[in-house]
């Protein structure tokens, strides 16, 4: 595999003709970079819609007696909010979005293994999103993003639409997973062994098998729920012999790996941003790479820690508790490694770096509360309460979303050729950081004191902190709006970035911004890790990339 010579007419040399016309270039594009941008834009649209739903939730919770929307509407709102954030925002953004955008260039490839499949994967995504939001027109699902039967069997038609929509976006995910695994296994540039891959690629490599395997398990559960609701085929209805707890097993067997799908690529982004802006190598490269794979694997073994109160045999709680504790160790190792990366650095506080440092601080809180929850006796107290809501938002918003913003500020110039405005970026960061913590910290003690989750009204003793959280959440929303303004303005008017505004060392920064559709004129040879700033770049063959010379075999003559 690691042959330095250029293959005679192989994939690495094969540059197909440039696509012509607006539709071929930007709508039905086969180019992984365009597809990545399409994913990111679509996911941001769903972020806006779902964020709006979140503000409906928070506005309702201003008053203990609610009153902003009817109870049933509220139930629909938070159910679609959760479902959209997981399946239409975070997962597509981190895998289809940043994954597609960045890692093929980072491994020195021209595209992913199956570009046509990639395009199909993308187009399924907005369709399924429309399907999910259309459920509002027919009685959206009301039983949360988890839709436990038997109550989900009673739900309006929108629950069946939810099953179909998530099933479809799951198909898209599975295809992306297959695509990424094959790409990473087979299309790395000559010389790029596994131990010379950037950590963002490792993050995607750990995530892709989860996409492939776990998502299919969810598809089965959703299909069963759908046919039970529509055709009366009993899987989960206890009066017909089915088992409601079985849904939970099937659902969580997917959804626990899903949370790793939502964080492993984020870990990858942070592992790129921190070294670049500290001007020194990532600390503990091998351990970070290895622990990502370990987390992905172990993620399949802990699903029932979401089910400690579901009626499992008590002795089963123990192994799930212990393995969940154990997963904390590789996660902790990564956190320590990231902190150590800052030591002895020359740190530049670009907005991307602020979000990355913020990620480490906030994700750690979420990780620690996760360890709390793994302890069965504590979970028996706080399961199903706002403590859980606090925990999940710390890891998904303080974690994944912060990493997404870090990735946006980092790679926006690569994709558009222009920098995002740093002043607006810093306002975005600080407003977001303050608003976020204000919104989600109080949830931890509200949960412990007695506030359950998925409620439209609550005991008046919790009123002060709920109001506090709502006001803080408005700050978060404003900060995200500032980000959108920044992005839209900077596409036309941002300062030109050049190929490598950050002085970074991975391959994507050694080609123009934005890159040509064929990525590289000549596939480089790699002979080292990219992270050592005292060494010259560990690539050979990149001399022509930043010049005006044409690509070698443009018309695909063979």
């Amino acid at each position, binding site marked *: 595999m690691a042959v330095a010579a250029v293959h005679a007419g192989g994939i690495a040399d094969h540059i197909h003709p440039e696509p012509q016309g607006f539709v071929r270039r930007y709508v039905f594009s086969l180019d992984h970079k365009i597809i990545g941008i399409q994913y990111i834009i679509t996911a941001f649209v769903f972020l806006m819609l779902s964020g709006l739903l979140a503000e409906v939730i928070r506005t309702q919770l201003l008053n203990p007696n609610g009153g902003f929307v009817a109870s049933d509407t509220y139930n629909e709102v938070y159910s679609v909010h959760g479902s959209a954030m997981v399946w239409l925002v975070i997962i597509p953004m981190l895998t289809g979005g940043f994954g597609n955008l960045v890692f093929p260039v980072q491994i020195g490839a021209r595209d992913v293994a199956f570009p046509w499949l990639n395009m199909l994967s993308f187009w399924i995504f907005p369709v399924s999103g429309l399907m999910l939001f259309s459920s509002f027109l027919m009685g959206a699902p009301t039983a949360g993003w988890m839709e436990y039967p038997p109550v989900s069997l009673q739900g309006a038609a929108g629950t069946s639409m939810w099953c179909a929509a998530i099933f479809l976006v799951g198909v898209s995910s599975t295809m992306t997973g297959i695509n990424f695994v094959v790409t990473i296994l087979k299309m790395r540039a000559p010389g790029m062994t596994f131990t010379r891959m950037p950590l963002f690629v490792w993050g995607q490599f750990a995530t892709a098998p989860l996409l492939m395997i776990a998502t299919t398990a969810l598809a089965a559960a959703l299909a069963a729920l759908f046919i*039970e609701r529509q055709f009366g*085929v009993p*899987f989960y209805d206890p009066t017909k012999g089915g088992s409601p707890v079985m849904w939970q097993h*099937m659902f969580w*067997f997917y959804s626990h790996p899903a949370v790793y799908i939502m964080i492993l690529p984020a870990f990858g982004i942070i592992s790129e941003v921190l070294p670049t802006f500290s001007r020194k190598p990532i600390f503990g490269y091998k351990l970070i790479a290895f622990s990502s794979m370990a987390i992905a694997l172990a993620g399949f073994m802990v699903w029932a820690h979401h089910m400690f109160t579901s009626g499992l045999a008590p002795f089963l709680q123990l192994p799930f508790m212990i393995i969940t504790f154990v997963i904390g160790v590789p996660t902790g190792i990564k956190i320590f490694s990231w902190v150590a990366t800052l030591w002895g650095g020359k740190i530049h506080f670009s907005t991307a770096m602020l979000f990355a440092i913020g990620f480490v601080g906030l994700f750690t809180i979420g990780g620690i509360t996760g360890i709390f929850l793994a302890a069965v006796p504590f979970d028996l107290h706080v399961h199903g309460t706002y403590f859980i809501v606090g925990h999940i938002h710390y890891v998904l918003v303080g974690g994944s979303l912060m990493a997404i913003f870090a990735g946006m500020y980092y790679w926006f110039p690569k994709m558009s050729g222009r920098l995002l405005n740093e002043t607006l970026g810093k306002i975005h960061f600080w407003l977001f950081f303050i608003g976020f913590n204000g919104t989600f910290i109080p949830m931890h003690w509200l949960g412990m004191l007695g506030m359950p989750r998925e409620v439209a009204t609550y005991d008046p003793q919790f009123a002060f902190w709920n109001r506090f959280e709502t006001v803080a959440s408005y700050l978060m929303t404003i900060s995200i709006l500032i980000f959108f303004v920044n992005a839209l303005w900077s596409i036309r008017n941002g300062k030109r970035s050049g190929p490598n505004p950050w002085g970074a060392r991975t391959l994507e920064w050694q080609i123009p911004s934005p890159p040509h559709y064929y990525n590289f004129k000549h596939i480089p040879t790699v002979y080292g890790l990219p992270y050592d700033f005292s060494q010259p770049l560990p690539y050979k063959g990149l001399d022509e990339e930043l010049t005006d010379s044409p690509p070698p075999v443009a018309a695909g003559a*063979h």
Partner: protein
Amino acid sequence: MSVASLARDAHGEVDQLYIETRELRLQGFLLFLVSDCVLFSSFIFAYLYLRNSGQGWPPPGIQRLDVAFAAWNSVVLFGSGATMHYALENFKHGKFMRYIWFLLATIVLGAGFLGGQVYEYNHLIFGEHVTWWGSGIFGASFFTLTGMHGLHVFLGVCYLTVLVLQSAAGVYTRGKFFGITAGTLYWHFVDVIWVVLFSIFYLL
């Protein structure tokens, strides 16, 4: 005799592009089969979980399965696996007509299996105890799993028919026949799934 030694482009040069593309497609197809396996495994888990929930098996009011008939039907399907294997081997050795005959035999046997399944379904639905998809957890698990499998067989038979037509039109050469390889892998996969399903429904 490897594909690599035979895959040549229009100039007679070793077609590196094809070889690498084929490697990618092979790996992608295998991963697709892995995820399909996970799909079946999830429903198999559901079946075993429900069956184990203490209601006695089969539940009352359910038509008994005809193990002997299903065993014969399984032989038909496994036979089609063998014929598919020989089809591919003959193609690789350049024996085109034998390849076509074995391929047609596979299609006939596969269709035969489907016919057998139709008969089995008939016996359940119109038998003494009406047993259909909604008939409790037996119906739910049996018809969902065998239905999914039958759908896979049906799609496989359609694909193999397309293969016959494509082969007759000369699409495949001894250096480029990934479509046939993929079809063979898929067909063996369908066989393996049936081994599991037969065991857990008819033998257990």
